[in-house]
């Protein structure tokens, strides 16, 4: 099934370094909360970085799946989930199948 391609904004929290995702109103550690920023994505990234709400933000493409956005590139899927070799340290440690879905 072909899902719509969306543009989402991600970066790291300045103080903690945590991976964060733009929700339309703020930042979340969970990619499921990310929203399609469309043509505004770059402007959102610039504005939020200037306001120190996020560190080194950038825009990625993702597929809008029923489970939430799925980044096009494996690097961003690993960022969204955590290291595939340490599921206990992932964003969803109780989800045993999560690492496989990253790939």
């Amino acid at each position, binding site marked *: 099934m072909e899902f719509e391609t969306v543009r989402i904004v991600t970066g790291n929290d300045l103080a903690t370094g945590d991976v964060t995702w733009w929700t339309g109103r703020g930042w979340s550690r969970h990619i499921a909360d990310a929203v399609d920023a469309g043509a505004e994505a770059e402007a959102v990234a610039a504005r939020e970085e200037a306001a120190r709400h996020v560190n080194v933000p950038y825009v990625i493409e993702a597929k809008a799946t029923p489970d939430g956005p799925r980044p096009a590139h494996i690097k961003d899927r*690993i960022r969204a989930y*955590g290291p595939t*070799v340490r599921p206990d340290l992932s964003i969803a440690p109780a989800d045993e199948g999560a690492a496989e879905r990253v790939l």
Partner: protein
Amino acid sequence: MYKYDEYDQSIVEARVEEFREQAERRLSGELSEDQFKPLRLMNGLYLQLHAYMLRIAIPYGTLSSRQMRMLAHIARKYDRDYGHFTTRQNLQYNWIKLEDAADILAELATVEMHAIQTSGNCIRNISSDQFAGAAADEVTDPRPWAELLRQWSTFHPEFTYLPRKFKIAVIASEEDRAAVKLHDIGLQIRRNEAGEVGFRVFVGGGMGRTPMIAPLIRDFLPKEDFLSYMEACLRVYNRYGRRDNMYKARIKILIHELGADEYRRQVEEEFLHVKTLGLDPPAGEFERIAAFFAPPAYETGLPDEIDLSDPDFASWVEQNVHAHKQPGHAIVTISLKPVGGIPGDASSAQMDLMADLAEQYSFDELRVTHAQNIVLPHVAKRDLHTIWKKLDAAGLATPNLDLVSDIIACPGLDYCSLANARSIPVAQKIAQRFASLDRQRDLGEVKLKISGCINACGHHHAGHIGILGVDRKGEENYQLSFGGSGAEDTSIAKIIGPGFSEDGVVDAVEKALETYRELRTEGERFLDTYRRVGLAPFKEAIYG
């Protein structure tokens, strides 16, 4: 071990406070990320995939028990209860918060540690032989010279902004356990025909995207000229190394383009000038440093015999224990490569245990190896069984040193923002495929090394079998290469053909090693057989 003097301690403490203020300015918004990035990198703080990563310097890989316990404490208090020992004998934490970084550096300073010059275009942590001071085959302990280099290179004003990073390794044995010819400068201490101690100087080696073996620049450098000659080597590089293209900025490119003879000529010319500056320390200063590395007070009269009636213990002794120059003693290598584990990772509890063992049984010393294992350098043979039992209970007694499951692997795409593919899962699958110790031992020495990108932190160019992860149209793909070596017979591995999927490369490694079993002659390692018969039979087995 070397002990900081008041100058060492004060400059490290001053750097902590300087960084504390810089981090506060970043957190308050006074500094932008562009302004802050070079400052944090000077203190080993990277921003990686999931968080900040902090790289701690472990000079020439030598640690005291107290220092190892501090590493465990930091992992427990500020990170996620583990650390990752690297191919440059350092340690990395993967989950650091910027708001904690200065406190961590302050805690490290209390045990004479820091993260200075673990990043940036400067002279990085000096690496050395993990068996230094213990190896039966060494001319002298190379660590006093490595320490002299550390002091010379720390905050060296002329070499803070080199064209690119700069790595130096020092050994004092014919057997090369530090891959010296794959460093920017590789130094081998030796004696000349008159019995004098000096250095064989190799310059311009390296891995990365353009692997090169360092040519010999000086066959015998008298020790009295050591620092002046190092200064001259760096000056010529600093003056003429390329700054227009970071991929051509390492000294290996300069020497390749100039030619070794012309580089040598320029260095010798510069050396004549530098030598007039009085840079080399007086003998008394070197003796002061060397005294910190005096041999420990070994017990004498200890037996050399080891009771090997326990077969599991015997396997471990055979694989992970090496000869020591002191009778009745041995060198223990603790494998951080359990089957299915993550190469180089150790939990806080494991670090504490290794510190305890070092304190109790190894004169308070540990070493980190470039193959991501830990060494207890001075162990009485009578204590080996006790040590083995304690290691075994903590999952640290895998008897696989230099076998196919003793894999070097970089953090790869699971952690690293530069990586194109994951390294660790490939290492885990290969280790699981060859989980049988009997099978591994039958295959003998196989140095398998995996990098997740062309930067080659996993040393794949120097692997008997090397694996390089690449991004092929958004998919992870793995190139296989054979024939590398980081030992005294240094060679660069060659790519064998088209790449593989993750599972495909595991199958290919197995086919290669089965082919080796069929073709080997008595006493041949995989590398020897490959060098003798060439690629063709392996390629046929793998690609059909």
